[in-house]
Each structure stands twice: as C-alpha cells, then as structure tokens.
C-alpha cells in the first residue's frame, strides 16, 4: 500500500506546481501522509496506546503499591525496631535481675557452704582433739601401768638380790613403828 501511495504522490507532484512545488513539497503526498499519520494515530490510539497506558498504569500502580508497601514495611520495621529495642531493654533488665538474683543466690549458697564447711571443720578438729586427748590418756595409762610393772619387777629383782637379814630387821621395825 505504501508503495502505491508513493507512486501516487510522485505522480501528482510531477503534475502540479506552486509554492509547495517550489519548496519541493508534494501537497498531495503531504495530505496523504497526514491522513496516514492520523490513521496511524487513530489506530495506535485505539489499539496500542490503551494497552501501553494500561501497562504503564499497572506498572505505576505496582510501583505505588510497592512504595506503599515499602513505606508500610519501613513503618513496620521501625515499629519492630522500637519493639525490639523495648524487648531488648526489658530483656536486659530481666537479665540484670536474673544475674543479680543468681549472684545473690550464689553468694548465699557459697556462704551457706562456707558455714557448713566451717562447722564440719570445727567438728573434725574437735573430734581430732578428743581423739588425741583419748589417745594421750590411753598412752599415759599404758605408760603408767608399764612403769608400775617395770618398777615392781626391778624392785623385786634388786631387793631379792640385795636385801639382807639386818636390812629386813630394819624394814620390820620401821613397819611396826609406822603401825603403832
């Protein structure tokens, strides 16, 4: 079709003159081109532009929705951030309280353990002292008894070998004198 119009315009420009001719403009061709342009515009306006505009509108709408969602998300993020900060603050506070409580409990437990250990150590020391005292008493008794045995044995041996009749007389006299 374009070929036909071109042929037609070329034919007309060759046959007509005037200002347009002097300027090298083929009026017919110009009119036809204008008509073709209008037709093209109409066609574009009817079939292409609505689709493009719709696509652009959709795109715009999506962008606006995205922007809106982004703003909403940002808002939510801010709220979440604030909430997180609040929770963190609360958590820190609770953690501090827990740590403080744990420290107090640990100190109390340590103090209780120390007290128990002290009492137990005192009992052990006391028991050891008692045992040592008993051992000392037993050792003293054993030493006492052993000394008595040794003294008796030594006395028996020595006296048995050394005492004489005259010495025995003196012993008897002393015993009778003591009893009188």
């Amino acid at each position: 079709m374009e070929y036909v119009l071109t042929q037609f315009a070329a034919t007309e420009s060759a046959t007509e003159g005037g200002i347009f001719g002097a300027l090298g403009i083929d009026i017919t061709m110009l009119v036809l081109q204008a008509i073709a342009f209008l037709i093209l515009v109409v066609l574009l306006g009817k079939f292409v532009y609505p689709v493009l505009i719709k696509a652009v509108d959709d795109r715009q709408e999506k962008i606006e929705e995205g922007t809106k969602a982004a703003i909403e998300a940002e808002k939510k993020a801010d709220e979440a951030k604030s909430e997180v900060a609040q929770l963190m603050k609360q958590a820190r506070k609770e953690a501090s309280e827990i740590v403080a409580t744990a420290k107090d409990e640990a100190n109390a437990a340590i103090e209780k353990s120390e007290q128990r250990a002290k009492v137990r150590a005192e009992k052990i020391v006391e028991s050891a002292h008692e045992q040592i005292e008993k051992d000392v008493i037993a050792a003293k008794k054993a030493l006492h008894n052993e000394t008595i045995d040794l003294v008796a044995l030594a006395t028996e041996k020595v006296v048995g070998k050394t005492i004489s009749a005259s010495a025995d007389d003196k012993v008897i006299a002393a015993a009778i004198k003591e009893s009188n």
Partner: protein
Amino acid sequence: MAVRLSRRKIATYYADQLLAGRADVARELAAYLIDTKRTREATLIIRDVEDALEKRGVMVADVASAFQLSDAAKSAITSFLQAHSSASDVRLRESVDTTLLGGVRINTPSDEFDSTLRKKLAQLKATKV
C-alpha cells in the same frame, strides 16, 4: 566310841588343857579326831583352839618373813601384838618365805598384818589403771 562334840566345845576344852600345862594335849586331840572320823576338821579345830586361847589372853600368831627373825624383831612383834590386843601372852609361830622379799606378815586368829615387800608390790600393781 567317843561322843561327838561341837568344835566350840572341843576348842574350849583343849585351850583350857593347854593353859593348864598338859603336854599331851595334841596327841589326845589327834586321837579324838581319828576316833570320831573328823580329821578333815583338824585345821578348823586348831583355829578355834587359837581363838579360845586368844580369849584367855594367849595369842598364837603366824609370822612369816623372808629371813629368820632376829630377837629384836621378835620382841618388837610381840610388843606390837600385845599393844593391839588383849593378849598378855603372845606366842609366835615363825616361818620363812623368801618370796616375801622383805618385811613381815603376821596372822592372828582375828586379824592380819602384812608389811611385806611382796604385798607392797602387789598394792603398787593394783594401782594400775
């Protein structure tokens, strides 16, 4: 067969006979005990006789020592016994026991006096705990 008498009567009788100076009292007592089949009571009857003698002022004391007693020791023991009893006449029946080590042990019918070293050592051992 002889009449069975109580130990007290026998002791009284023979104590009186001894104080009267009869020398054959021991033989008579032995014959009586054999006749009455009471020889197992001889030791008890002799002790009873000594008791009876003590009541009559004659004390028989068993004196044990590690060595033979000197006259001075005998005299001291006699005086000691007279001072601690009502006996005016004290007779000592001596014996030597070397295990006593020293000192003297006096047994009278009613009392005992032990000052031997053996006894003192026993007392010392008794203090063991």
